[in-house]
């Protein structure tokens, strides 16, 4: 991967002690290619390269680094910063229940992630809400997951996501649940009717966190999808799923640049415990390959 190629370049550069503009250009080309191969969006890569140039100049002024180290450090640090710098955690309301709404494209892992969140925040007394009235056997799927996560699930109000959510709100008030997790139907960011349905759900029960659930293997279009969801619905965070595969995960950078919301977790298996904190530095390593 890029890290290995850098190691080779580094040895070569350290041999010379300084870097020629030709060498720098070839390194930059390698970085650009590597990021594209990692599924970082083309325009995001362009912006990244411009930002990198700035950072390299700043580091150059410090003069304490050898040129090879300089470039590698600059790339890595720039990536970590763009990915959020530190891990972030969900802040729950102390006084009343918190609401998480999981949204995203079809098949990305919303339903599974809803149950994973219920398990992770078991001590918050969570309640799962099936707001997918479209997908065949969606509520059965969530019920089975809820049972395994030992979490109650609101029964589905026939044919209406908003009605089910309304019921959840009532139940939370009556029974004192601390966390409401809404699993919504997969939808296209370009489907006006379904976007309207989502807005309706959020008017019925205002989420504290609107979480974009995105497939870790997503390609170039991840930027478009994230920005459309952000424009039309608003996003407060994101979770990147299926990161137990070997996708480099450039979509993480695409989502951050499109919506600039914290990446809270990554999905790392199909199991209920397959939800790990998102670490910007680990993600940067993975993207660089």
């Amino acid at each position: 991967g890029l890290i290995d190629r850098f190691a080779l370049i580094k040895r070569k550069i350290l041999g010379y002690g300084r870097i020629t503009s030709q060498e720098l250009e070839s390194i930059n080309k390698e970085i650009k290619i590597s990021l594209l191969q990692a599924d970082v969006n083309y325009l995001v890569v362009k912006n990244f390269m411009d930002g990198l140039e700035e950072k390299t100049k700043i580091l150059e002024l410090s003069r304490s680094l050898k040129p090879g180290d300089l470039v590698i450090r600059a790339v890595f640090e720039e990536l970590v910063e763009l990915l959020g710098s530190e891990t972030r955690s969900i802040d729950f309301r102390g006084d009343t229940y918190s609401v998480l709404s999981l949204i995203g494209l079809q098949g990305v892992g919303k339903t599974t992630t809803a149950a994973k969140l219920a398990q992770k925040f078991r001590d918050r007394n969570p309640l799962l809400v099936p707001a997918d009235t479209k997908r065949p056997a969606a509520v059965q799927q969530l019920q089975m997951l809820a049972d395994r996560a030992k979490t109650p699930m609101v029964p589905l109000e026939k044919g209406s996501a908003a009605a089910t959510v309304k019921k959840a709100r009532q139940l939370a008030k009556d029974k004192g649940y601390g966390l409401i997790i809404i699993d919504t139907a997969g939808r296209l960011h370009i489907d006006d009717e379904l976007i309207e349905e989502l807005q309706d759900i959020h008017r019925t029960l205002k989420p504290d966190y609107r979480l974009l659930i995105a497939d870790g293997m997503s390609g170039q279009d991840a930027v478009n999808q994230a920005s459309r969801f952000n424009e039309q619905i608003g996003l407060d965070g994101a979770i990147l799923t299926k990161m137990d595969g070997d996708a480099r995960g450039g979509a993480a950078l695409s989502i951050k640049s499109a919506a600039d919301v914290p990446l809270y977790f990554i999905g790392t298996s199909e199991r209920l415990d397959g939800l790990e904190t998102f670490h910007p530095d680990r993600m940067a390593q993975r993207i660089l390959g």
Partner: protein
Amino acid sequence: MEILIQADVGVKYAEVIRAKLERAEGDRIMALREEIASLLSQPRPSRGVEAPVITMVSGVNGSGKTTTAAKLANLHRKAGTVLLVSGDTYRDAAHEQLNIWAQRAGVEIVASQRGQDAAAVVHDAMSKAFAKKNSHVVIDTAGRLHTRADLMEELKKIVRVIIKFRPDGPDYNILTIDANLGQNSIQQAKIFTEAIAVNGLVLTKFDGTAKGGAIIPICNELRLPVLYLGVGEGIEDIVEFDPEDFARSVTT
């Protein structure tokens, strides 16, 4: 070739195509589309004449296998008697999901329960289909990441069961590729093909805004044809793949 990169064609193939076009004369866009169409024109499986025609659908999690299996069963129902098989014995409510589709398509379904041995379910379904002389059998399998060697072994086992009934394995050994995914699709296709000799692709979720360009390297390197495009969540939302139409859409 910025437009190709943004279509998920990838750096390598964007360069390969660009280099080829340098020597092209005349209309650049037309030459580009012809080149893409030619990369996508791969031999279709020359199978599927003996009843029952066996279709198996595999692919990574959430790529659209179950919905595609239902769509294919529906297509075949118009010309014959179809047996749909719940080969996914892992996912919650997998059979319940496929069962609803079977009702919508008006076809018979072989049930399964979570935790059963998938190969055993497929074995029983095969016996049934060959005894009843169904025209078609469509087998849905559980989603799996190609990086899970144990799950790839399970898939191989399912194919071995099918081979007992039909020596060349499934007539249509289909891999679903989600059009929203990037370069990882190529690795998925490589590993699945190495494991079970995939002979055709279905590119799903093509009704979104992603271009699905990753199938260009896949089709050319693995000599695999795209058989259909998934263009929506309804049972009729499937169309035959046309390389020229696709070439046009990926360059727009």
